[in-house]
Every structure is written in structure tokens, then in C-alpha cells.
């Protein structure tokens, strides 16, 4: 049976070159980068090489990069650290309604610590209107965070336009670029942001490593205390092999971004245009054009995402879903609900995130195996029979 991995938003595989770059630090170059002796030297060098590689990926200075344990950690660090460092100026933060939980829940934690929170809405495509951000700003606003692109619906946000507004108002602006860094061009100066999160396992690097970039001069409260690592802002012995891998992945992503994007966009468009015709009663979620290159997301009406996911898995196809049943909390995706979709439609969420290994034949295979799965589940669905009856069918 054909095996087709279309869940690169969960994690990408590790590129062989990346693994090669990591191996020395799992072997003889095991030293601690903080050690002054000869064993520390290669580890220290690996860290600084990786720091430069990551900085180059996003057009930043190497000394502004802080390595973390994940994109989630970077977001926690940014939201809490930036707000706390500026709480003497004010205690109001603004984030969009469709942020990743690592941003949203960090902002909720700030609320418990006495901050006030404003959630900025999105339109039906999941786009944040910069004017909504402007309207949400107050005298005491100290932080705005809007993601560069949403990993669930693929929509790319107008970060540059929002940054103009935050600059005019002298408010720190963080963007969660976990879905974009290493995938589409990200340049911190062009975007005009003050802080930016990224994660290794989104662009063929290892899991368990991320980075937070903070513009020089922007104050942030340290995230972990107890050591001098990462300028004293993120203490703890560094995950040197993973950091070396992140650096290599960043270098490769920058070098081959154009060809990767072309490949992914072609495959994505095959699904975006092909699927609705094959199965009917399908909503493309997210912005139709302004979306991530390898990202095709839908809501299939009258059926539920997890059962689609499981039947696709039985055919060798790996996807994900934002349905309530697939989340541990059994809640419908906050992203789809914020975009105005009904709970019934949001339940039919299915998400294809493509990768470098995928081929046009993989897309044809999906277009071949999915329609019978949808049909089978619809024949089982009381919502579908209601719909057919309402149309006067059998």
C-alpha cells in the first residue's frame, strides 16, 4: 500500500543532512558549551554556527537569537517575558483570536497575573484586520501578538501593516512565525516586528528545539533562571545536537526556499482545486490565495474529521483534523469558530500539510481514496440524511 505523509504541520521529517550535522554532538563532541576546557570548545562553536544560520534565515543579528526547547516555549517566553518586562508602563495585551494555544493560554495566564487581554477578531478567511488592532490599542497596551500564518487554515497575516500601527503607538509587537520561518521568506526588519518565534521541526530540523528572536533594545524578562546560558535569559545546559540541527535546517531552508515553495504550491493547488469537485459540499478553510505553500485545509460537510482521519490512515494517508473529537479537550477548533463556521461544519475539518517528499501521484492517490471514504461516512450520517430529506430526496 502507498504511504503518504500529509501532516507536516505536526512535524516534518528530519533531512539526512540535518541528522549528519547533529551526529558529532551525540558522539565525541559531547562537551558542555559553558565549559572552559577543550571539550567545551566544539560545542560552543556549534552553538554559534547555528545562531548565525538561524539569524540569516530571518534577517536578524546572531546575538539577538535565543535558543529554546520548542515553538511553544518561544511563545510562552515572548508573551510572558515581554509583558512582564514592561508592566510598569501598562498591563494590557492584545492577541488575535486564532493564535496557537501557546500564545492564547500564555495571555490567559497574564490575565490571572493582573493583565487585561483583548482578543482581535478575524474575518471568514482568518485574516486579522490591522484596523481592528489599532482600535484595540489603549494607553496602557504594552504588547501585541499576531501570528505570521495560521497552521490550521494556512492564512498569512498582514504583519507588516500591523507593525506600522504598533510602531506608531510605541507598543512591542511579537509574531509567532512557527508556521512560516523556514517555509516562506521571513525578514524581521521587513516585517517590522520586535520579537519572533520559530521551531525546528517545522522545516526539516529536529523536534524539541526552537528559537526566539528579540530585537536588540527590547526588554524581556528571563524565562528560566539559574544560569548564564543564552545571555542569562534562558538558563540550562543547551541541547547542542538539536541546536546544531536547527542551524543546518535553517541554512538548507534558506538556500532552497524558492524551489521548495514551487513544488509545494503545485501539489497544494492540485488538492485545493481537485477535492471540492470530487466530493461536493466542501468548504476550503483559510484564505484562497494568501496561504502557506504546502497547506490545503477543508471542512467536509455532514461528517466528522476524526473518522475521516482514521479511514485515511487505513489507506496509508496521514492527515490531521481540527474537529472536537480529535482534540483531547473535545472542543471544536477555536480557529474555525473564530472564522464564523458552525460547530457542525467545523467538525468536518481536515488538514493536508504537504512536504518535500510528496509527489503529484500522492495527490492523485488522495483524490482517489478520499471520495469513497466521505461517501461511506455520509451514508452513515444522520446529518446527511436530514440534508437529503430537506432537499426532497430519498
Amino acid at each position, binding site marked *: 500500500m502507498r504511504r503518504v505523509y500529509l501532516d507536516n504541520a505536526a512535524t516534518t521529517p528530519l533531512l539526512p543532512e540535518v541528522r549528519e550535522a547533529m551526529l558529532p554532538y551525540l558522539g565525541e563532541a559531547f562537551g558542555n558549551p559553558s565549559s572552559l576546557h577543550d571539550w567545551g570548545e566544539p560545542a560552543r562553536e556549534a552553538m554559534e554556527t547555528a545562531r548565525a544560520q538561524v539569524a540569516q534565515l530571518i534577517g536578524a543579528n546572531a546575538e539577538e537569537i535565543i535558543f529554546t526547547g520548542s515553538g511553544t516555549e518561544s511563545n510562552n517566553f515572548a508573551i510572558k517575558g515581554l509583558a512582564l518586562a514592561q508592566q510598569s508602563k501598562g498591563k494590557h495585551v492584545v492577541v488575535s483570536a486564532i493564535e496557537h494555544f501557546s500564545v492564547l493560554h500564555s495571555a490567559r495566564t497574564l490575565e490571572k497575573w493582573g493583565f487585561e487581554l483583548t482578543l482581535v477578531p478575524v474575518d471568514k478567511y482568518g485574516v486579522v484586520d490591522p484596523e481592528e488592532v489599532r482600535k484595540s490599542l489603549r494607553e496602557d497596551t504594552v504588547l501585541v501578538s499576531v501570528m505570521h500564518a495560521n497552521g490550521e487554515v494556512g492564512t498569512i497575516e498582514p504583519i507588516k501593516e500591523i507593525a506600522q500601527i504598533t510602531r506608531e503607538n510605541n507598543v512591542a509587537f511579537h509574531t509567532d512565525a512557527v508556521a512560516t520561518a523556514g517555509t516562506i521568506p521571513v525578514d524581521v526588519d521587513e516585517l517590522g516586528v520586535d520579537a519572533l518565534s520559530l521551531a525546528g521541526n517545522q522545516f526539516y530540523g529536529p523536534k524539541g528545539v526552537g528559537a526566539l528572536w528579540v530585537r536588540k533594545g527590547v526588554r524581556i524578562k528571563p524565562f528560566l533562571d539559574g544560569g548564564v546560558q543564552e545571555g542569562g535569559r534562558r538558563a540550562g545546559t543547551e541541547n547542542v545536537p538539536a541546536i546544531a540541527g536547527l542551524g543546518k535546517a535553517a541554512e538548507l531552508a534558506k538556500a532552497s526556499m524558492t524551489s521548495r515553495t514551487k513544488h509545494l504550491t503545485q501539489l497544494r493547488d492540485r488538492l485545493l482545486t481537485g477535492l471540492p469537485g470530487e466530493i461536493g459540499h466542501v468548504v476550503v478553510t483559510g484564505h484562497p490565495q494568501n496561504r502557506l505553500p504546502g497547506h490545503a485545509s477543508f471542512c467536509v460537510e455532514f461528517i*466528522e474529521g476524526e473518522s475521516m482521519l482514521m479511514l485515511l490512515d487505513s489507506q496509508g494517508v496521514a492527515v490531521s483534523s481540527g474537529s472536537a*473529537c480529535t482534540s483531547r479537550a473535545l472542543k471544536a477548533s477555536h480557529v474555525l469558530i473564530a472564522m464564523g463556521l458552525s460547530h457542525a461544519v467545523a467538525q468536518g475539518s481536515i488538514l493536508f500539510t504537504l512536504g518535500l517528499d510528496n509527489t503529484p501521484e500522492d495527490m492523485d492517490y488522495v483524490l482517489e481514496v478520499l471520495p469513497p471514504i466521505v461517501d461511506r461516512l455520509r451514508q452513515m*450520517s444522520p446529518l446527511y440524511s436530514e440534508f437529503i430529506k430537506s432537499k426532497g430526496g430519498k
Partner: protein
Amino acid sequence: MPIYSEKVMEHFMNPRNVGEIENPDGVGQEGNPICGDMMAFYIKVKDNRLDDIKFKTFGCGAAIAVSSMVSEMAKGKTLEEAMKITPRSVADELEGLPQNKFHCSNLGAQALHKAIQDYLSKKKKVEGGK
């Protein structure tokens, strides 16, 4: 997918008694799309026994497996026996359900019980009308 038992997977992949019954003796529906799952049971009763039973389900793998299992457990049983099917007995027959999915099995037994109650109340009306 190891979050589900083999038995759950088997019923999910090959659900029994899917469909609707024309002119059913009783219908029971439980759940709604907001909570995630929705099940409808249709029954035919003969000599106080569940002569036929069919279901339609909108929901996750567990919800479909639960519906299938409930239909299998109930078919041929007397109404009293069928009313004794509980969420726990369904989950046990399925060799367990993930904890956060347990509410799905509640839905299955409830929908079946509603269908039986629907039958009984209709019967009462007919008998009362005599």
C-alpha cells in the same frame, strides 16, 4: 491507531446495522454537533423483542464503534434486557474506550433507550385509544 482497542477498530472499520428502518416502531436520537457526536437509533419490535435495529451516527471513531456495538448487543434482546445495557457494559464489550471518549458510549445507550421509550409511549397511546 493504538488509542483505540482492536475491538473498537474492528467495529469502526466494519460497523454492523448501519442505516434506517422504514416505518420504525421507535426512534431515539441523542447528542448534537456542538458536543461532537450525534446518534439516531431505529427499532422494530416483535413479541417484546428488538426484532431489528439500525443506526446512523455523526461522530468520531469511538462514536461509530459504540453505535455498532450497542446495535449488536441489543438485537434480539427483550426490551427489559435492552434497557439494562449501560455505557459501562458497552465500553467493556469494546475492550475499553479512551477516558476522554467515554461520553460517546453514554450517548449510544441513551439513544437506544430513547428509541425503546418512544416505542413504549406510542404503544401506550394506541392501547389507551382502544
